[in-house]
Protein backbone atom coordinates (compact mmCIF):
# COMPACT_ATOMS: atom_id res chain seq x y z
CA UNK A 1 0.00 0.00 0.00
CA UNK A 2 1.43 3.34 -1.03
CA UNK A 3 1.73 6.40 1.14
CA UNK A 4 -0.79 8.22 -1.00
CA UNK A 5 -3.45 5.54 -0.62
CA UNK A 6 -2.95 5.40 3.13
CA UNK A 7 -3.30 9.18 3.40
CA UNK A 8 -6.44 9.06 1.22
CA UNK A 9 -7.91 6.40 3.50
CA UNK A 10 -7.06 8.48 6.59
CA UNK A 11 -8.71 11.57 5.07
CA UNK A 12 -11.84 9.61 4.12
CA UNK A 13 -12.04 8.08 7.63
CA UNK A 14 -11.55 11.54 9.15
CA UNK A 15 -14.38 13.02 7.07
CA UNK A 16 -16.74 10.21 8.10
CA UNK A 17 -15.88 10.64 11.76
CA UNK A 18 -16.30 14.40 11.41
CA UNK A 19 -19.87 13.83 10.27
CA UNK A 20 -20.76 12.20 13.62
CA UNK A 21 -22.76 14.53 15.80
CA UNK A 22 -21.90 14.05 19.45
CA UNK A 23 -18.82 16.29 19.43
CA UNK A 24 -20.64 19.03 17.55
CA UNK A 25 -23.75 18.66 19.74
CA UNK A 26 -21.61 18.95 22.87
CA UNK A 27 -20.07 22.15 21.53
CA UNK A 28 -23.51 23.60 20.71
CA UNK A 29 -24.55 22.81 24.28
CA UNK A 30 -21.40 24.36 25.69
CA UNK A 31 -21.92 27.54 23.66
CA UNK A 32 -25.57 27.75 24.59
CA UNK A 33 -24.98 27.39 28.31
CA UNK A 34 -21.78 29.42 28.44
CA UNK A 35 -23.04 32.41 26.43
CA UNK A 36 -25.93 32.79 28.87
CA UNK A 37 -23.56 32.97 31.84
CA UNK A 38 -20.12 34.19 30.80
CA UNK A 39 -18.42 36.98 28.88
CA UNK A 40 -17.90 36.29 25.17
CA UNK A 41 -14.15 36.06 25.66
CA UNK A 42 -14.49 33.31 28.25
CA UNK A 43 -16.94 31.40 26.03
CA UNK A 44 -14.40 31.61 23.20
CA UNK A 45 -11.68 30.09 25.40
CA UNK A 46 -14.01 27.34 26.61
CA UNK A 47 -14.95 26.44 23.02
CA UNK A 48 -11.29 26.40 22.01
CA UNK A 49 -10.41 24.08 24.90
CA UNK A 50 -13.33 21.81 24.03
CA UNK A 51 -12.13 21.51 20.42
CA UNK A 52 -8.55 20.79 21.53
CA UNK A 53 -9.94 18.08 23.82
CA UNK A 54 -11.67 16.42 20.87
CA UNK A 55 -8.49 16.73 18.75
CA UNK A 56 -6.35 15.28 21.55
CA UNK A 57 -8.51 12.20 22.07
CA UNK A 58 -8.81 11.46 18.34
CA UNK A 59 -5.04 11.80 17.96
CA UNK A 60 -4.37 9.65 21.03
CA UNK A 61 -6.83 6.93 20.01
CA UNK A 62 -5.38 6.67 16.50
CA UNK A 63 -1.81 6.48 17.83
CA UNK A 64 -2.77 3.96 20.53
CA UNK A 65 -4.49 1.83 17.90
CA UNK A 66 -1.38 1.89 15.71
CA UNK A 67 0.78 0.92 18.67
CA UNK A 68 -1.52 -1.98 19.62
CA UNK A 69 -1.73 -3.29 16.05
CA UNK A 70 2.02 -3.11 15.57
CA UNK A 71 2.80 -4.90 18.82
CA UNK A 72 -0.08 -7.29 19.38
CA UNK A 73 -1.51 -8.26 16.00
CA UNK A 74 0.61 -10.55 13.89
CA UNK A 75 1.30 -9.08 10.43
CA UNK A 76 0.06 -12.30 8.83
CA UNK A 77 -3.43 -11.84 10.35
CA UNK A 78 -3.89 -8.12 9.64
CA UNK A 79 -5.81 -8.82 6.45
CA UNK A 80 -8.30 -10.99 8.38
CA UNK A 81 -8.73 -8.18 10.89
CA UNK A 82 -9.46 -5.80 8.04
CA UNK A 83 -12.23 -8.12 6.85
CA UNK A 84 -13.74 -8.00 10.36
CA UNK A 85 -13.38 -4.24 10.18
CA UNK A 86 -15.31 -4.13 6.89
CA UNK A 87 -18.17 -5.98 8.58
CA UNK A 88 -18.12 -3.46 11.42
CA UNK A 89 -18.17 -0.54 8.98
CA UNK A 90 -21.22 -1.96 7.19
CA UNK A 91 -22.93 -2.48 10.57
CA UNK A 92 -22.11 1.15 11.48
CA UNK A 93 -23.67 2.27 8.18
CA UNK A 94 -26.92 0.57 9.19
CA UNK A 95 -26.75 2.06 12.67
CA UNK A 96 -26.27 5.53 11.16
CA UNK A 97 -29.20 5.14 8.81
CA UNK A 98 -31.61 3.48 11.21
CA UNK A 99 -30.87 4.44 14.77
CA UNK A 100 -28.31 7.21 15.14
CA UNK A 101 -30.84 9.99 15.71
CA UNK A 102 -33.85 9.46 17.95
CA UNK A 103 -37.26 10.18 16.45
CA UNK A 104 -38.64 13.63 17.10
CA UNK A 105 -37.97 17.25 16.25
CA UNK A 106 -34.64 17.64 18.06
CA UNK A 107 -31.21 16.19 17.34
CA UNK A 108 -31.19 13.68 20.17
CA UNK A 109 -28.75 10.84 19.52
CA UNK A 110 -28.69 7.11 20.15
CA UNK A 111 -26.92 7.54 23.51
CA UNK A 112 -28.59 6.34 26.70
CA UNK A 113 -30.71 9.16 28.17
CA UNK A 114 -28.74 9.11 31.41
CA UNK A 115 -25.50 9.70 29.52
CA UNK A 116 -26.86 12.56 27.40
CA UNK A 117 -28.28 14.14 30.57
CA UNK A 118 -24.83 13.79 32.15
CA UNK A 119 -23.12 15.55 29.20
CA UNK A 120 -25.80 18.26 29.22
CA UNK A 121 -25.27 18.78 32.96
CA UNK A 122 -21.49 18.90 32.53
CA UNK A 123 -21.76 21.40 29.68
CA UNK A 124 -23.97 23.64 31.83
CA UNK A 125 -21.54 23.44 34.73
CA UNK A 126 -18.36 23.97 32.71
CA UNK A 127 -16.56 27.03 33.99
CA UNK A 128 -12.90 26.62 33.17
CA UNK A 129 -10.72 25.48 30.31
CA UNK A 130 -9.69 22.16 31.85
CA UNK A 131 -13.33 21.16 32.29
CA UNK A 132 -14.08 22.19 28.70
CA UNK A 133 -11.04 20.22 27.48
CA UNK A 134 -12.16 17.07 29.29
CA UNK A 135 -15.74 17.53 28.07
CA UNK A 136 -14.39 17.63 24.50
CA UNK A 137 -12.43 14.43 25.20
CA UNK A 138 -15.48 12.76 26.71
CA UNK A 139 -17.75 13.69 23.80
CA UNK A 140 -15.29 12.35 21.24
CA UNK A 141 -14.64 9.21 23.26
CA UNK A 142 -18.31 8.44 23.90
CA UNK A 143 -18.89 7.54 20.27
CA UNK A 144 -16.32 4.76 20.56
CA UNK A 145 -18.80 1.95 19.68
CA UNK A 146 -19.28 3.61 16.29
CA UNK A 147 -15.76 4.95 15.78
CA UNK A 148 -13.95 1.75 16.77
CA UNK A 149 -13.86 0.48 13.18
CA UNK A 150 -12.68 3.88 11.93
CA UNK A 151 -9.88 3.97 14.50
CA UNK A 152 -8.81 0.51 13.41
CA UNK A 153 -8.64 1.56 9.75
CA UNK A 154 -6.75 4.76 10.58
CA UNK A 155 -4.34 2.95 12.90
CA UNK A 156 -3.57 0.43 10.16
CA UNK A 157 -2.92 3.20 7.67
CA UNK A 158 -0.64 5.03 10.12
CA UNK A 159 1.66 2.01 10.08
CA UNK A 160 2.09 2.42 6.31
CA UNK A 161 2.93 6.09 6.04
CA UNK A 162 6.31 7.73 6.34
CA UNK A 163 5.27 10.33 8.92
CA UNK A 164 2.66 8.61 11.12
CA UNK A 165 2.44 11.38 13.74
CA UNK A 166 1.75 14.03 11.10
CA UNK A 167 -0.85 11.77 9.49
CA UNK A 168 -2.52 11.19 12.89
CA UNK A 169 -2.56 14.95 13.49
CA UNK A 170 -4.10 15.52 10.05
CA UNK A 171 -6.80 12.96 10.89
CA UNK A 172 -7.54 14.57 14.27
CA UNK A 173 -7.79 18.02 12.68
CA UNK A 174 -10.22 16.75 10.03
CA UNK A 175 -12.35 15.23 12.81
CA UNK A 176 -12.51 18.62 14.53
CA UNK A 177 -13.31 20.55 11.34
CA UNK A 178 -17.12 20.88 11.88
CA UNK A 179 -16.47 22.25 15.37
CA UNK A 180 -13.97 24.76 13.98
CA UNK A 181 -16.53 25.81 11.35
CA UNK A 182 -19.16 26.27 14.08
CA UNK A 183 -16.72 28.35 16.10
CA UNK A 184 -16.00 30.55 13.07
CA UNK A 185 -19.73 30.96 12.37
CA UNK A 186 -20.33 32.10 15.96
CA UNK A 187 -17.33 34.40 15.74
CA UNK A 188 -18.71 35.97 12.56
CA UNK A 189 -21.92 36.89 14.37
CA UNK A 190 -24.29 33.97 13.75
CA UNK A 191 -26.16 32.82 16.84
CA UNK A 192 -26.18 29.30 18.20
CA UNK A 193 -29.87 28.81 17.38
CA UNK A 194 -29.13 29.20 13.67
CA UNK A 195 -26.59 26.37 14.00
CA UNK A 196 -29.03 24.15 15.89
CA UNK A 197 -31.79 24.87 13.34
CA UNK A 198 -29.36 23.86 10.59
CA UNK A 199 -28.65 20.61 12.43
CA UNK A 200 -32.36 19.85 12.79
CA UNK A 201 -33.23 20.71 9.19
CA UNK A 202 -30.33 18.67 7.81
CA UNK A 203 -30.63 15.67 10.11
CA UNK A 204 -31.59 13.38 7.24
CA UNK A 205 -28.75 14.62 5.05
CA UNK A 206 -26.24 13.99 7.87
CA UNK A 207 -27.62 10.47 8.37
CA UNK A 208 -27.36 9.60 4.68
CA UNK A 209 -23.94 11.24 4.33
CA UNK A 210 -22.47 9.35 7.29
CA UNK A 211 -24.19 6.06 6.44
CA UNK A 212 -23.01 6.10 2.84
CA UNK A 213 -19.59 7.29 4.03
CA UNK A 214 -19.18 4.13 6.09
CA UNK A 215 -20.14 2.02 3.05
CA UNK A 216 -17.70 3.92 0.80
CA UNK A 217 -14.90 3.41 3.34
CA UNK A 218 -15.71 -0.32 3.50
CA UNK A 219 -15.61 -0.56 -0.32
CA UNK A 220 -12.38 1.44 -0.38
CA UNK A 221 -10.78 -1.07 1.98
CA UNK A 222 -12.08 -4.01 -0.01
CA UNK A 223 -10.66 -2.53 -3.22
CA UNK A 224 -7.27 -1.37 -1.97
CA UNK A 225 -6.47 -3.45 1.09
CA UNK A 226 -8.11 -6.83 0.85
CA UNK A 227 -8.17 -7.60 -2.88
Amino acid at each position, binding site marked *: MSDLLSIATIILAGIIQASLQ*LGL*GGLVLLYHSSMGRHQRRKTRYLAKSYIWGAVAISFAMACTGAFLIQNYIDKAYRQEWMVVCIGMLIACAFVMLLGYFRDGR*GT*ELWLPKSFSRFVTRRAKATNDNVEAFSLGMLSAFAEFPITLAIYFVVANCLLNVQFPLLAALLYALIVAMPMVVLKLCIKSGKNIIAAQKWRINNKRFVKIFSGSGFVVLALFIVAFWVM
Partner: protein
Amino acid sequence: MGKKRITYEYTHDGIKESILRHAKALRLPEGWGEQVAERVAKATDKWIDDKDIVTEDDLQNFICKELEEISPDIAFAYRNHDKII
Protein backbone atom coordinates in the same frame (compact mmCIF):
# COMPACT_ATOMS: atom_id res chain seq x y z
CA MET B 1 -41.26 0.24 41.33
CA GLY B 2 -42.85 3.56 40.35
CA LYS B 3 -40.85 6.46 38.99
CA LYS B 4 -39.83 8.97 41.65
CA ARG B 5 -41.58 12.30 41.24
CA ILE B 6 -39.60 15.45 41.73
CA THR B 7 -41.44 18.63 42.63
CA TYR B 8 -40.19 22.21 42.48
CA GLU B 9 -41.63 25.36 43.88
CA TYR B 10 -42.57 27.88 41.21
CA THR B 11 -40.88 31.27 41.41
CA HIS B 12 -41.28 34.33 39.24
CA ASP B 13 -37.55 35.01 39.38
CA GLY B 14 -36.65 31.45 38.39
CA ILE B 15 -38.70 31.71 35.19
CA LYS B 16 -37.38 35.18 34.45
CA GLU B 17 -33.80 34.11 34.95
CA SER B 18 -34.07 31.05 32.73
CA ILE B 19 -35.60 33.11 29.88
CA LEU B 20 -32.92 35.74 30.34
CA ARG B 21 -30.20 33.09 30.11
CA HIS B 22 -31.56 31.91 26.76
CA ALA B 23 -31.80 35.51 25.55
CA LYS B 24 -28.17 36.11 26.50
CA ALA B 25 -27.12 32.91 24.72
CA LEU B 26 -28.75 34.31 21.59
CA ARG B 27 -26.88 37.59 22.03
CA LEU B 28 -30.07 39.60 22.12
CA PRO B 29 -29.75 43.09 23.61
CA GLU B 30 -29.88 42.79 27.39
CA GLY B 31 -32.67 45.35 27.87
CA TRP B 32 -34.87 43.60 25.33
CA GLY B 33 -34.17 40.21 26.93
CA GLU B 34 -35.07 41.64 30.31
CA GLN B 35 -38.37 43.03 28.98
CA VAL B 36 -39.31 39.74 27.32
CA ALA B 37 -38.43 37.75 30.44
CA GLU B 38 -40.44 40.06 32.72
CA ARG B 39 -43.47 40.02 30.42
CA VAL B 40 -43.53 36.24 30.10
CA ALA B 41 -42.88 35.70 33.82
CA LYS B 42 -45.84 38.00 34.66
CA ALA B 43 -48.11 36.13 32.22
CA THR B 44 -46.97 32.84 33.77
CA ASP B 45 -47.70 34.17 37.27
CA LYS B 46 -51.26 34.97 36.18
CA TRP B 47 -51.70 31.59 34.48
CA ILE B 48 -50.39 29.59 37.41
CA ASP B 49 -52.23 31.61 40.06
CA ASP B 50 -55.38 29.44 40.25
CA LYS B 51 -53.52 26.11 39.99
CA ASP B 52 -52.28 24.01 42.89
CA ILE B 53 -49.92 21.91 40.83
CA VAL B 54 -48.74 21.89 37.18
CA THR B 55 -46.44 19.55 35.31
CA GLU B 56 -43.12 20.73 33.93
CA ASP B 57 -44.37 20.04 30.39
CA ASP B 58 -47.47 22.22 30.88
CA LEU B 59 -45.35 25.02 32.25
CA GLN B 60 -42.86 24.72 29.39
CA ASN B 61 -45.66 24.69 26.80
CA PHE B 62 -47.24 27.80 28.27
CA ILE B 63 -43.95 29.69 28.42
CA CYS B 64 -43.07 28.67 24.86
CA LYS B 65 -46.49 29.78 23.62
CA GLU B 66 -46.00 33.17 25.23
CA LEU B 67 -42.45 33.48 23.95
CA GLU B 68 -43.50 32.46 20.44
CA GLU B 69 -45.48 35.69 20.11
CA ILE B 70 -42.67 37.94 21.29
CA SER B 71 -39.45 36.20 20.24
CA PRO B 72 -39.59 32.92 18.26
CA ASP B 73 -35.82 32.47 18.65
CA ILE B 74 -35.98 32.43 22.45
CA ALA B 75 -39.03 30.14 22.22
CA PHE B 76 -37.03 27.76 20.03
CA ALA B 77 -34.08 27.81 22.44
CA TYR B 78 -36.38 27.30 25.44
CA ARG B 79 -38.15 24.36 23.83
CA ASN B 80 -35.07 22.63 22.41
CA HIS B 81 -32.22 23.24 24.84
CA ASP B 82 -32.56 19.74 26.29
CA LYS B 83 -32.89 18.04 22.90
CA ILE B 84 -29.46 18.87 21.48
CA ILE B 85 -27.73 15.52 22.05
